[in-house]
């Protein structure tokens, strides 16, 4: 009897160590799939868990993870839908804030910057802790980065810390960018100079050459009292090259700024180690 009792006791204890209900096994399995990057299967298993979980024990966690899976698959609309469902199933204020941040991050990636900023502004009014306010400003900075507004991004990161590394990066990008207006203005004064200023030396020199030729032909016609010739050559040739030079300078400046932004975004995507949307 004594032997049987001790055996039973030890056996019962051992079972309690390994016993796991089906739902928690399912959650662990789905979570493993998520962690190993099998997002499609992970979504299926999380959905199965939610479908068979009458007490909604896993509603928050499963919905958040489904959202993350969709986000990883670049399906941002679906991700936001599930993050929003998670937000409705939160058990604490922390979870609610976390769900909101996830919605913001998906909005940043979806490039719906206004919606991201709207949510962050609402959050800013609701919270008072320094750490959370820093998070709000951090994601505001990222929202502005994705909207190609590096100046506002720098201001947002500056609210966290005056020498925040992303603030430095944003400032550098803002300094590297060329002014489209300035490029156009110098092209009005000296044709081709705008393109040379943005680094396109050969097109700039060619534009300068065409304008000199057009100008010479026009002026020469007027000097020789061929007013009609001068007017036609001036309008059909010179003016065409002059306007082309200004448009070329503008396009060149815009393209240079896009290249600078893309280079910075590539750096942030592949080399920046901090939290990313």
């Amino acid at each position, binding site marked *: 009897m004594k032997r049987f009792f001790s055996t039973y006791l030890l056996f019962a204890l051992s079972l309690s160590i390994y016993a796991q209900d*089906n739902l928690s096994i399912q959650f662990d399995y789905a979570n493993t799939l998520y962690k190993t990057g099998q997002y499609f299967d992970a979504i299926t298993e999380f*959905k199965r868990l939610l479908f068979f979980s009458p007490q909604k024990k896993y509603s928050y966690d499963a919905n958040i993870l489904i959202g993350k899976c969709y986000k990883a698959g670049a399906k941002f609309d679906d991700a936001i839908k599930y993050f929003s469902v998670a937000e409705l199933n939160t058990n604490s204020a922390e979870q609610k804030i976390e769900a909101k941040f996830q919605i913001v991050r998906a909005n940043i990636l979806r490039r719906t910057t206004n919606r991201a900023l709207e949510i962050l502004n609402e959050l800013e009014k609701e919270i008072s802790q320094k750490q959370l306010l820093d998070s709000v400003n951090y994601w505001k900075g990222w929202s502005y980065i994705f909207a190609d507004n590096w100046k506002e991004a720098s201001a947002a990161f500056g609210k966290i810390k005056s020498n925040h590394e992303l603030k430095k990066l944003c400032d550098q990008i803002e300094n590297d960018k060329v002014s489209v207006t300035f490029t156009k203005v110098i092209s009005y004064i000296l044709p081709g100079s705008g393109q040379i200023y943005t680094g396109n030396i050969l097109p700039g020199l060619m534009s300068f050459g065409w304008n000199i030729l057009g100008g010479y032909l026009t002026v020469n016609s007027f000097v020789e009292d061929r007013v009609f010739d001068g007017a*036609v050559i001036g309008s059909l040739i010179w003016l065409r090259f002059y306007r082309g030079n200004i448009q070329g300078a503008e396009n060149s400046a815009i393209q240079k700024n896009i290249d600078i932004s893309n280079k910075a975004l590539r750096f942030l995507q592949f080399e920046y180690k901090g939290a990313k949307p």
Partner: protein
Amino acid sequence: MILLLKNKVISQNLICLIILVFFFQGKIFSQQINGLNLGASPESYSAASDGELYPILSSAEAEREGGLKDNLLSTGNRLKFADYLFQQEDYLRALNEYREFLRYEDNDSVRYRLAESFFRIGRFNEAADNFKGLFFGSDLSDEAILGFYKSSFFKGNYKEFRELTATPIYMPDKYVTEINRLYFISHFMDNTLPYDTAKLFTAFPDSNRQEVKNFYRSRKFSEYKSPVTAALLSVAIPGLGKVYAGEVGDGITSFITTGLLVFLSVNNFDHDHNFRGWLFAGMAALSYGGTIYGSAASAQIYNAGIKFNLDNEIKLYFEKRNYFLPKLEF
């Protein structure tokens, strides 16, 4: 441990315990593994598609693979979950679950929903194959044949679809009108409308017949512009071809530009400015040639625009009415 082993009773208990623990541990873990590995992998899709469609497992295999009958992956639960996914319009996951269900149990309704899932995600070849599996000996055979024809229609090879409909052996009495209508719609889609319209118009409901007639007229007698005529008109008067092709502003501009360049050329030759004369003559020739070519291109663009708009209009019209197909409840 040595002290424990000295006690014979305790050591016997310990051995029993270890055996029991390992036995149950193994069982629990095997349940977990068996249960959780049932999700279908993309490889298994193709494997099933290539060979026999969704063979049912033997009872021994089912017991081995299924393990727990009451777990989340039992056939009943799978079906409930699959139906839920289907209702949520998550067809890709739904078909995965239906496919897994069919490994254990055969069910025509589930087979139909599986085929319908393939259809709704645009995998028309697989949909047609799965509908085909329900052609004979099934209560849903009429619906399956309709499903097969609609899958063939949506593949976009309308000629092949029409050839299929020419096989009356498969035509279900219940849906012959719908399939016949799809046949005529296919003519609208690839612009191969017949001249004999008696059967064509009667295939559509009275309420839509007038609109279908209008589409027929637009398709059959569209006012296309001839690129050759446009080019010849511009040869006669630069820019007239563009006006003919509907680009009035461009036509007038071309006329003025070419005329001005010709005038400048003649004027310079008259004043013995030969270099400038030849320069403007060359420019005038370029402008003239460009206008002729541009006129032909304008006519082609005009025709492409008419065709594109009409194609879209017809497609949207039929899409909005679900190609006059019945909405089946299942």
